[in-house]
């Protein structure tokens, strides 16, 4: 308990310093006050966004978009990752193409996707799904291929069938790697979500608040957008870390 509290406090040192510096600069007019918006104006912007429902609608839409895109990307990533991780024949056919495609940055797909799906929600979802897809495939495949030989030998001496070996040895052994892949996929999907919203700007969303505020030249709105994105991202990250710490009863609790 004690070390936790201390750690938490230390983690707050940096944000507090930045806030203080921001306050010093903005309150004393030391910097460009178009960029270094004062705390009171940020506060007013937050109040406005909260009151007119923009923030809630944006957060909800963004999270929903993330969820759908992630679900699509992670599910297909799991399927492909398992296929090439469990079958070396499938691996030989699919892996080269996959690893070539992986070199293409997520947003390089935008021109093609907008041509196919239009400038709207579907393209955003597709970008998020692509963001979630790659890390899932890579980690699922690595997990399935990296099962220590000694465990596979246990399966052989116990005369486990191929299916039993997958279910009782390969998948459990790969599970931590699969989970790490999904965790990474949430992170990349989150980045893709904000990027997609910012560039495509259709409907509600935190990235769309950001883009719209920039268009209006309202720096206080931009800052509120950034803060909201940072906070939601941080919450997601903590939530996943918390969940994955508890995911495996069979692992010794790490420090």
């Amino acid at each position, binding site marked *: 308990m004690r070390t936790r509290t201390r750690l938490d406090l230390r983690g707050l040192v940096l944000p507090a310093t930045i806030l203080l510096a921001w306050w010093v600069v903005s309150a004393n007019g030391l910097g460009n006050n178009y960029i270094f918006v004062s705390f009171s104006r940020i506060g007013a912007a937050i109040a406005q966004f909260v009151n007119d429902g923009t923030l809630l609608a944006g957060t909800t839409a963004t999270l929903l978009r993330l969820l759908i895109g992630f679900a699509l990307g992670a599910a297909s990533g799991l399927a492909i990752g398992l296929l090439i991780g469990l079958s070396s024949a499938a691996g030989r056919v699919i892996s080269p193409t996959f690893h070539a495609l992986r070199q293409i940055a997520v947003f390089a797909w935008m021109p093609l996707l907008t041509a196919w799906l239009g400038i709207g929600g579907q393209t955003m979802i597709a970008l998020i799904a692509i963001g979630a897809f790659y890390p899932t495939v890579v980690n699922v495949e690595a997990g399935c291929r990296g099962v220590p030989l000694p465990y596979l030998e246990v399966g*052989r*001496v*116990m005369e*486990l069938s191929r299916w039993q070996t997958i279910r*009782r040895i390969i998948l459990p052994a790969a599970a931590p790697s699969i989970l790490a892949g999904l965790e990474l996929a949430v992170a990349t999907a989150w980045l893709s979500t904000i990027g997609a919203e910012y560039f495509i700007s259709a409907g509600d969303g935190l990235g769309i608040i950001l883009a719209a505020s920039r268009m209006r030249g309202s720096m206080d709105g931009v800052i509120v957008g950034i803060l909201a994105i940072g906070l939601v991202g941080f919450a997601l990250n903590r939530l996943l870390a918390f969940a994955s710490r508890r995911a495996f*009863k*069979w*692992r010794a609790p790490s420090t």
Partner: protein
Amino acid sequence: MSLAALSHPEQAVAIEVRGVSRTFTTAGADVPALRDVSLTVAEGEFVSLIGPSGCGKSTLLRMLAGLDQPDRGTVSVEGDKVAAPSLSRGILFQDHRLLPWLTVEQNVDLGLHKSGLTTQQRQQRVSDLIALVGLAGFERAFPYQLSGGMSQRAAIARSLAPQPRVLLLDEPLGALDSLTRSKLQTELLRIWKHERITMLMVTHDVEEAVFLSDRVVVMEPRPGRIADIVDIPLPKPRHRGDPAFVDIKLRLLTSLEVETDPPANIVEH
């Protein structure tokens, strides 16, 4: 029952190793793990393998288990050439190899899927074996929660579960304190007698070998080969203080010392 009769040459052959050689290539160099090894073990016999580290003991056991194949020679068990692993040939690995994501009871149950037992009978068998190795109360524990010795005992239970006809044991009691060790030696002897399993056990403990075995095979390294085979015609259970027991033990120690001291200035141990 005359136990000496078990090692009688007319007894059916359980394990037959004939002219087996196996060479590994490590970093470009050839390591002759076994060269021209021949050994016959009768059904129901208890044979120990002793010899310095690296003389191919585990390699031989792995071939008998069907996890590795000889470069030359043949390995057969109960008349059939060993081609693949089988539940009728249990192996207890040197590293216990419990599956970390299964509890002790799930690990022990792993080899019972072809046993034809009902779920209830399976549970009964698992809990009997867990009690046998002194792990009652740890059924639901995961391997990371066990000590080294407890893990080894769980692995013993797992290897006994499918009731193998031949059990290959690679230093099964290596990580145990002397008290648990002698308790499990007695237990092993009881299982061997009761289930009439053929046992081939690797050990570094000469006293353990003499206490349990009908014969002790002394091996020497580079290349791994059989240096000596010592019969132990004493009735079981044996008494460690018995002059005949001590005699054989000394003879084995001498044999190991002489045989394993390499002529060159290579130091083992």
